[in-house]
C-alpha cells in the first residue's frame, strides 16, 4: 500500500521549521539565511526569481549566506542568471545543477563556469519553455520571489514589474512547495492583490525595492544613420506590404529606430492605423512618440521598464493596468501572446549563418535565449487567419490549396552588416556550434532557426526567404544583403541580380527610399530628453540616461 500525502507532510515539516524563525509569516531580514537553512533540503529544486528585468536580490544574497554543509546540491530552476549571487551559490557548493533561460550580464562568467564543470547544466530554455517545465518536470520545491509590498497575511502587490511571479507561485504553491517573498515594505492593505496571501508562506521586509534593470531603454542619441536606413527598409519593405498590425519588437537600436520613425517616415507613407497598432512589448521609451501620435491601440507587457511607470499608468487606454492604476505585466501571458497572437517578430541578433540560423552566443559568452525564440518562431498550433499570416503562407507555398495552406508568421532578423566592434553579422559557421562541441551539448544554442526566419533586413536591403525555392537561392538571398562582410563579398553576383528581379531581394532604390532621408532629423525624438518631453514629463528616465 503506497503512502500518500508525503508532499503535504514534507511541506508541513518545512513550514514548522521555518516558523521558528518567523513571527506569523513575517521574517526579519537578518534571519533570512537561517530561515532558508530551515526550509531548504539538499537537492531541492529552487526557483530564485529573476529574469532580464526584476531580481529577488535580497533573497539571492541570503541564499549565498547559508551553510553549504546543511544546504547543498540545489537544482536552480530560474529564468535569469543575472546577479553575481546567482553564480556564487554554485561556487560555494550550495547549488549544483542549473536550468535557466537568460544570462545577459553573467554571460562570460557562466561560460567559464560551464567550461570549468562548476555547474551541471540541465538546459538553456526560452522563458515560456521553462515556465512550461515548472508544471511538468521542473516544479520548484521552494520559490524565492520579489514583490513591492505585502500585508501581514502575505497578500502581495507586485506592481508594474509583476513579470514571472504569478507563474512561479502557481507552480510552487499548488504543488506543495514553499514560497518566500521579499518586499520593500509591509503595509496594512496592499494597493492590489497580485498574489493571494494563502499561496505565500513567508515574507521578509527589505526596506528597499527589488532591483530592476532598465534593459529596454535605448538612447535615441546613439542611433546611427545606417540603422535609420535599415528601419526605413523594414517599414516600407515589410510592415507596409503585409499590413502588420500585431507584432513584437525585440531589444536593440534597430527596432528602436523603427519606433522612432513611425511618426515621421511612417506618417508620410500613410501607414498610421494600418501597421503597428497592437503589441506584445515592454513599455519601450522609444515608442512614446508613436503612442502620442495615435499609432498604437494596445500593448501587453512582459515586464515594466524603469521610469515608464507613471507614463503607463497615465495611458491606461493603451496599457493593461490594475484597479490601483498601475501597469500589470505578466511574462508568461505576454510570451504566449507573442507566440500566438502576433503576426510578426522583428529583432536583432549577433550572428546569422548561410542557412539563416541565428545566435547570440559567441565562444566566450552564453547569453541564453530569453523570449526571442517564442516570438521568433512560427506557431504550428495557430488556427486563426489574418492578412499578413495568409500572405506569408501563400508566398512560402504558392501551389498549395488555399483552404488547406498554413499561414506563416513573419520572423524578421534586422541588423547592420557590421555590428559592435565591426564584428560581421553574417558568418559561415555560428560560434554556437563550437560551443556545443566544447560543452558536449546535444543542441547548439540557436536563437532562431533558419526555417522560421521569413526575412532578413540590413542596410543593403530586404531578403524575403519565403520566396526562395531551394537552399542555394536561400544562401544567395542571405549573401545578397550581407554587404561587405566576407559572406556578402562571396555572393554570386548574377544569381543575386536574378533574385532582385524576382523581388526576393529589394534594395533601397527598389523600394524608392531616398538615401538623403537616412538622417537623424527623421527621428521623432533624438535624445532621452526628447522622449521625456514627448511624454509630457510622465517618463522619468533613470539617472544613468540623464545627461542634462
Amino acid at each position, binding site marked *: 500500500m503506497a503512502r500518500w500525502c508525503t508532499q503535504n507532510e514534507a511541506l508541513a515539516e518545512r513550514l514548522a521549521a521555518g516558523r521558528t524563525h518567523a513571527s506569523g509569516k513575517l521574517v526579519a531580514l537578518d534571519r533570512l539565511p537561517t530561515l532558508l537553512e530551515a526550509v531548504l533540503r539538499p537537492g531541492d529544486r529552487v526557483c530564485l526569481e529573476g529574469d532580464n528585468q526584476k531580481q529577488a536580490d535580497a533573497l539571492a544574497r541570503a541564499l549565498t549566506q547559508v551553510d553549504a554543509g546543511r544546504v547543498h546540491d540545489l537544482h536552480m530552476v530560474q529564468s535569469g542568471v543575472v546577479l553575481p549571487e546567482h553564480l556564487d551559490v554554485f561556487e560555494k557548493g550550495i547549488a549544483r545543477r542549473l536550468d535557466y533561460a537568460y544570462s545577459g550580464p553573467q554571460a562570460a562568467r557562466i561560460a567559464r563556469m560551464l567550461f570549468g564543470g562548476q555547474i551541471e547544466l540541465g538546459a538553456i530554455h526560452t522563458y515560456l519553455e521553462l515556465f512550461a517545465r515548472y508544471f511538468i518536470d521542473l516544479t520548484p520545491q521552494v520559490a524565492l520571489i520579489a514583490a513591492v509590498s505585502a500585508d501581514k497575511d502575505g497578500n502581495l502587490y507586485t506592481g508594474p514589474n509583476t513579470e514571472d511571479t504569478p507563474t512561479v507561485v502557481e507552480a510552487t504553491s499548488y504543488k506543495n512547495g514553499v514560497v518566500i517573498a521579499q518586499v520593500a515594505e509591509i503595509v496594512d492593505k496592499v494597493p492590489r492583490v497580485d498574489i493571494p496571501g494563502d499561496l505565500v508562506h513567508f515574507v521578509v521586509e527589505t526596506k528597499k525595492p527589488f532591483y530592476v534593470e532598465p534593459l529596454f531603454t535605448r538612447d535615441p542619441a546613439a542611433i*546611427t*544613420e*545606417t540603422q535609420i*536606413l535599415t528601419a526605413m527598409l523594414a517599414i516600407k519593405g515589410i510592415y507596409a506590404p503585409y499590413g502588420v498590425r500585431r507584432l513584437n519588437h525585440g531589444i536593440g537600436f534597430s527596432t528602436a529606430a523603427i519606433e522612432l520613425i513611425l511618426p515621421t517616415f511612417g506618417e508620410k507613407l500613410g501607414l498610421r492605423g494600418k501597421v503597428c497598432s497592437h503589441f506584445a512589448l515592454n513599455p519601450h521609451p522609444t515608442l512614446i512618440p508613436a503612442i502620442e501620435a495615435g499609432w498604437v491601440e494596445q500593448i501587453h507587457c512582459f515586464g515594466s521598464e524603469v521610469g515608464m511607470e507613471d507614463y503607463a499608468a497615465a495611458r491606461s487606454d493603451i496599457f493593461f493596468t490594475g484597479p490601483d492604476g498601475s501597469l500589470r505585466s505578466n511574462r508568461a501571458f505576454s510570451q504566449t501572446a507573442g507566440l500566438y497572437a502576433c503576426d510578426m517578430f522583428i529583432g536583432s541578433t549577433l550572428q546569422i549563418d548561410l542557412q539563416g540560423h541565428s545566435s547570440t552566443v559567441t565562444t566566450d559568452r552564453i547569453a541564453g535565449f530569453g523570449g526571442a525564440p517564442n516570438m521568433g518562431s512560427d506557431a504550428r498550433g495557430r488556427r486563426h487567419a489574418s492578412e499578413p499570416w495568409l500572405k506569408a503562407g501563400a508566398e512560402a507555398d504558392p501551389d498549395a490549396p488555399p483552404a488547406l495552406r498554413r499561414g506563416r508568421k513573419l520572423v524578421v532578423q534586422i541588423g*547592420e*552588416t*557590421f555590428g559592435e566592434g*565591426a564584428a560581421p553579422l553574417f558568418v559561415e559557421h555560428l560560434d554556437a556550434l563550437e560551443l556545443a562541441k566544447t560543452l558536449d551539448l546535444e543542441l547548439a544554442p540557436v536563437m532562431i532557426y533558419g526555417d522560421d526566419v521569413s526575412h532578413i533586413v*540590413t*542596410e*543593403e536591403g530586404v531578403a524575403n526567404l519565403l520566396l526562395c525555392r531551394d537552399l542555394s537561392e536561400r544562401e544567395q538571398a542571405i549573401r545578397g544583403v550581407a*554587404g*561587405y562582410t566576407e559572406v556578402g*563579398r562571396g555572393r554570386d553576383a548574377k544569381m543575386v541580380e536574378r533574385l532582385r528581379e524576382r523581388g526576393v531581394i529589394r*534594395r*533601397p*532604390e527598389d523600394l524608392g527610399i*531616398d*538615401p*538623403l532621408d*537616412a538622417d537623424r532629423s527623421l527621428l521623432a525624438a533624438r535624445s532621452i530628453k526628447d522622449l521625456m518631453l514627448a511624454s509630457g514629463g510622465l517618463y522619468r528616465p533613470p539617472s544613468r540616461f540623464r545627461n542634462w
Partner: protein
Amino acid sequence: MERLSYTLNAAAPAKGSRRQAITGVVASGNLEVLAERVLPPDTCTVDIATAAHGFAAVWQAVFSDFAARHQAGGLRLSINDGGARPDTVALRLAQVVRLIEEPEA
C-alpha cells in the same frame, strides 16, 4: 595615411546639373565625400585618404557596387575617411549622388 585611387565604369551619368556636392563629416567612424562634376559622363573616379590601412579589397567591392547601382558618371569623388565602416561609406556615396541631383540651394 593611406591613399587609394579608383577609376570606375559608370553605368549612367549623374542626374542634375549642380557642379558639386559634399556630405558627411571627418570624424571617427565617419567620412566626408566631395563630388565634382568634372569628368566625361561614362567615367567616375574616386580618391581616398584613409587612416585605416589594408582595406583596399573592401573599398574596391564598395565602389564596384556603387558604380553599378547608382548614376555616378562624370563625377570625381574625393573621400576623407575617418575609419568608416563599409556600410557608412556606401550610404555616403548614395547620398552625395542624390545631393548633386538637387538644384543649388
